[in-house]
């Protein structure tokens, strides 16, 4: 059995690298190749990036990244207390179980159908506007509720919220209860216990949550397509339009830019964390 495992592990890793890792490298490679018509020529050129700059797609990446960042920060702010509550202080096991189920199911809901339903709710004649009108919050239906950054934000926060809560809850569950008791015993109030004990110990979960929220939100195609309204291009729109026009070098360049931005974010986050944990 051990011998079997010994040979299966490298085989699996090779397959994994071929299937999942090589494409990432290929993207970076293709992005600097020259394109002639629909074909790719083996000579190096930054033309793909030039095309991106011309069509203003760096701005698209930046705008989508800001939106995804905002989404994940909101998810973190609301998800951290919920995760701590789920892992530590939920008085009622039944309620905690219900919340867990509610947070598990969204992984499995069809994104198109849910987003479509949200579109019907947010429209000028939708239930949200009707409710606001009935409560006399506004005089006329709010037109920025749908086909706007706001709509995309709302559409993204919900589905990716569980991605934040899950890993944080798991990491808080793994913290020994005795450590928080020791912290209180040493005179740390709720804030100090949180800042000096819980937060650093939950940091792996928080980082996992940020990655698992921000990155899918960045690349989500359904929500911008159905709620964005087409007035503004989002990252997924750019990827789709570049690839449907068979402009593979520019598409690969776009993918590489996204990866570079993400690597930069991860690196700076890691450095920030190291400085934070040192002080």
């Amino acid at each position, binding site marked *: 059995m051990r011998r079997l495992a010994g040979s299966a592990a490298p085989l699996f890793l090779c397959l994994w690298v071929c299937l999942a890792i090589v494409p990432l490298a290929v993207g970076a490679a293709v992005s600097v190749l020259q394109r002639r018509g629909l074909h790719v020529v083996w000579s190096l050129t930054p033309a793909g990036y030039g095309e991106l700059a011309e069509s203003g797609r760096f701005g698209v990446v930046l705008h989508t990244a800001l939106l995804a960042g905002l989404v994940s920060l909101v998810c973190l702010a609301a998800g951290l207390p919920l995760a701590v509550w789920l892992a530590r202080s939920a008085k009622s096991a039944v309620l905690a179980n219900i919340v867990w189920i509610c947070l598990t199911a969204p992984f*499995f809901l069809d994104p198109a*159908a849910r987003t479509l*339903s949200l579109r019907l709710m947010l429209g000028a004649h939708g239930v949200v506007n009707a409710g606001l009108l009935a409560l006399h919050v506004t005089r006329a239906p709010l037109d920025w509720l749908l086909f706007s950054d706001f709509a995309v934000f709302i559409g993204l926060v*919900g589905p990716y919220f569980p991605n934040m809560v899950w890993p944080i809850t798991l990491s808080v569950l*793994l913290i020994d209860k005795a450590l928080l008791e020791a912290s209180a015993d040493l005179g740390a109030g709720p804030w100090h216990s949180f800042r000096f004990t819980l937060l650093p110990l939950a940091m792996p979960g928080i980082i996992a949550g940020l990655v698992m929220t921000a990155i899918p939100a960045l690349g989500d195609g359904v929500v911008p397509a159905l709620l964005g309204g087409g007035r503004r291009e989002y990252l997924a729109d750019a990827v789709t339009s570049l690839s449907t026009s068979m402009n593979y070098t520019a598409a690969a360049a776009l993918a590489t830019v996204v990866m570079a931005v993400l690597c930069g974010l991860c690196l700076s986050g890691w450095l920030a964390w190291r400085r934070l944990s040192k002080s």
Partner: protein
Amino acid sequence: MDAAFRAAARLLLAAGFGITALIYAPVAWLALLSVSADPLSGWPGGFTTSWYASLSASLGWRAPMLRSLGIAGIVAILCVLAAVPPARAWPRMRRGRVSFAALILLPLGVPGIVLGLLVFTTWRVLFGVHMGAWSLVLSHFIWAYPFALISMLVVTLRTDPSLAEAARDLGAPPLRVLCDIELPALMPGIVGAGLFGFLLSFTELPRSIFTGGQVQTLPLYSFAQASAHSSQIKLIFCLNTLISLASLAAAAVLVVLLRRRTA
């Protein structure tokens, strides 16, 4: 300081509950619309089950549905088979933990639509694979496997390794140890990995757009109908209401199993 902190935490906790509710508002609305006379108006009213009747009569969604079920089943099995050995070995791994984890989690760090595009170009151009059912299975596997592995690891990291050692010490051969001690202990993780594999594949859209070729899965079908403002949308509402109910049930099973082991 502490009072302000407590107030802020309570406020944010309320926001957390609010966002949880926000996830379900569209789903509940969807369910309401699916039994309404005119779902596309966006308003419920005029209770009818006729859309469910025409759903059961209609044929368009069946082939994508069956295909999605099959693909999701295969992905689930692959996920379990590939997640159990590394998760079992993890606590005993001396070197390479971090690089292994980084390698597995790296694709999670790339937006699905970007990865779909890259995977499509690489497999198609470099490996000459034709896009179809198998490329869907593989791209879904790449998507679901990290989740499956994490759910296995949550269980193996909390399982006492001395249990297996005790069994071995009492004279059980390796296979008996596996069947009698380890598999029962790992069962929540196995169920979790399988469910993640199944349901993440079942609802996968951004990668499928690129790796599906001519093959249509259920999410591809729904997305096409939804973007085309098709008359089939009413049926999609019905279908998704049913799927939501099924996934809530599946989630309930998953949560109860995982919590029994971890809490």
